[in-house]
């Protein structure tokens, strides 16, 4: 029997199959729940049980994109997918036809809450801007927002999200202090920096889109010179463009080469007063043009002249076990004293270094502990006007705010929370592959 030839029969049998299926599902549920007592269904008569595909959730949250909308619709309809037992038969090579299998997925794993990768403060509007790298949106909150513990989630003032925005895996973030323009750097599929006007809202197109190399991470700007910096993870480099660069505009200069010690480049921050550029690295190194050149180095923060280009070595390097660097993400700087604030993702901490540090040095201060609210802090932004530092937490859909002088197991002064209290994020970030652990019946999913 070929696909599509039994539609009328399926329709006639639907009611009967559904009734039998529901009874069967009750039986399976009872089995999995280890209910041993007799129920309203009567005494047990099943002699064997074959596992049915899981039906997934029936209720889902409001979808935010076309794709997620379709997936949500599938969840709603999944009850019926379990009964699509109609077999599809393979074609022969000689037959030249393909049997289409159109069953709906039986299960879906995704995170319906934001995953905040970066944070910045808009001093003009007194707002906190957060990059949601899961739902591909930019969420804007009042700076004084402090989500009560009994609230499910904070309500943003504005959300820039939708197909017109071109947001995809948005990470690096810079807010123009004079206009409030939002510069958003895509770290994967979009290969670009897009710019939204301050106050942008909804599904709006960016006012500029600069095409960049693949694997962007962070961005920073030198307002005095009108230049914007973008780090590229691999092949590692720092691109410097005119701040108003657009389309296929070329960079003004590029820092790259074996002497730069840029190995898997991440965060960047500028000290314009001292003419310095700080760049974080994770230590994953290789020259893609030469086989067998792969190496692992310890993570580091490299310090370069602000206008470094070409194969310029760092002036100094902060590196070593005392630094506690562990997949450090965003960096921010207090221009008043040159202190360097580092979002130390897997270390679950905020590290504060002196801007003059070098070598294997311990941070001057560390915010870390169970009161801190930190959970995979990936983005960070110093608010010099209000003497605060903001952190975006990928691990719990929140942003937490601290005094600039906070230290130790400090509780945040305010928290913006976009998921129920205590919820842990799935922390998906472009899960491109999957493997099945047959021993434990588990999925292995790399970002």
């Amino acid at each position, binding site marked *: 029997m070929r696909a599509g030839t039994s539609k009328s029969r399926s329709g006639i049998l639907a009611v009967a199959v559904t009734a039998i299926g529901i009874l069967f599902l009750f039986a399976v549920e009872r089995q999995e729940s280890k209910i041993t007592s007799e129920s309203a269904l009567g005494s047990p008569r099943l002699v064997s049980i074959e596992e049915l*595909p899981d039906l997934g959730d029936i209720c889902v949250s409001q979808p935010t994109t076309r*794709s997620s909308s*379709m*997936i949500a619709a*599938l*969840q709603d309809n999944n009850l019926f997918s379990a009964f699509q037992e109609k*077999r599809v038969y*393979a*074609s022969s*090579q000689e037959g030249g036809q393909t*049997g289409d*299998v*159109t069953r709906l997925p*039986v*299960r*879906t*794993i*995704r*995170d319906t809450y934001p995953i905040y*990768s970066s944070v910045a403060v808009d001093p003009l509007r007194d707002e906190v801007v957060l990059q949601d*790298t899961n739902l591909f949106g930019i969420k804007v909150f009042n700076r004084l927002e402090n989500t009560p513990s009994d609230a499910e989630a904070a309500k943003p003032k504005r959300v820039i999200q939708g197909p017109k925005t071109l947001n995809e895996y948005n*990470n690096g973030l810079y807010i123009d202090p004079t206009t409030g323009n939002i510069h958003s750097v895509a*770290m*994967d*599929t979009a*290969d670009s920096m897009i710019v939204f006007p301050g106050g942008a809202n909804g599904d709006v197109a960016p006012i500029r889109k600069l095409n960049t190399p*693949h694997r962007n*991470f962070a961005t920073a700007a030198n307002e005095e010179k009108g230049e914007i910096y973008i780090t590229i993870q*691999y092949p590692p480099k720092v691109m410097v463009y005119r701040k108003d660069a657009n389309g296929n505009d070329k960079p003004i200069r590029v820092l790259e080469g074996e002497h730069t010690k840029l190995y898997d480049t991440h965060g960047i921050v500028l000290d314009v007063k001292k003419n310095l550029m700080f760049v974080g690295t*994770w*230590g*994953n190194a*290789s020259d*893609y043009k030469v*086989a*067998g050149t*792969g*190496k*692992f180095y310890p993570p580091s923060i490299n310090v370069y002249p602000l206008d470094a280009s070409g194969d310029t070595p760092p002036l100094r390097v902060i590196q070593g076990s005392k630094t506690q660097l*562990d997949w450090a*993400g965003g960096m921010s700087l207090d221009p008043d004293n040159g202190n360097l604030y580092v979002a130390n993702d*897997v270390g679950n901490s905020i590290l504060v270094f002196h801007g003059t540090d070098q070598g294997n040095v311990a941070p001057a201060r560390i915010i870390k502990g169970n009161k801190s609210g930190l959970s995979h802090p*990936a983005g960070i932004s110093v608010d010099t006007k209000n003497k605060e530092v903001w952190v975006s937490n990928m691990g719990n859909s929140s942003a937490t705010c601290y005094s600039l002088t906070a230290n130790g197991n400090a509780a945040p002064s305010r928290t913006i929370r976009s998921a129920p209290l205590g919820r842990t994020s*799935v922390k*998906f*970030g*472009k*899960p491109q*592959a*999957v*493997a*099945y*652990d*047959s*021993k434990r019946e588990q*999925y*292995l*999913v*790399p*970002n």
Partner: protein
Amino acid sequence: MNTPQIAVFARLAKENTVPVRALEGQRTMISRTMHSLAYDSVHDEIVVNSPLAQAILMFRGDANGEEPPLRVIQGPRTQIQGTDYDGNDKMAFDDVHGEIIIPVAGNKVLVFSRDANGDVEPIRVLSGPDTQIRGSVRGHPLVGVDPINNLLIVGSTGGQGGGRDEGEGGRGGGRGRGALVIFDRTANGNAKPKAVIQGPHTALGGVATIQTYPPKGWIIAGSAGGSIGAWSIHDSGDAPPRWRIPVQQITGVAPSGVALDPVHKELIIASGGRNVLLTFYWPEIFD
């Protein structure tokens, strides 16, 4: 990605289900761009590329947190070479013979023993004009292995087969113009393939991994239009897939990686484009 990880989910996990554990952190040596990985069911290990550091890492099967790998293959003798766009992001694992198969730049496929550690030479190198292996300029061919029927399957994406260097928009390569090049599993040097599945009706392309189901002789690979197709190991020439799941048409998301769960007769799909995992019931290929 912003934070790489290998997250581990229970098979029956659903929307917003938290991973049971995650491998992450500096000591793990993992990096972004892990576009394939494998579970070694014989030795209970996880095998994965470290794509930015020209390395292969092997972890305990239940590795958790910031756990270092058991073994690392890396160094000049390995010949491992990535590309600027993909790094070295793809691999396949033969758990019957204990071999790691990794495509590299220059249209080569390297094979290492799973016991290898450090700067070691591959035990086989498949490369040369007679192989018909074509990676694109910026990305690698794909690989799959059928350890029972003793076949190595290479998904050629470059040259005539398509790929990023041919204006494909940098997403997945192929797009219906690739080829499945089938070799003896132990093919070495400039070996000729046993068969090549290629042509306008094959509709190959779009997914970064190739899986096999040896008991029935199926090759599971990407198909045009965001689909997953099943070809027979006995197919050759311009063969359309015997079956196809039009994933993008059904769900709105394009597949990027696949895995098989034969016990539950399920196909697991990762969608890197939309942060989603989907599981399809597909008994036809297992029965």
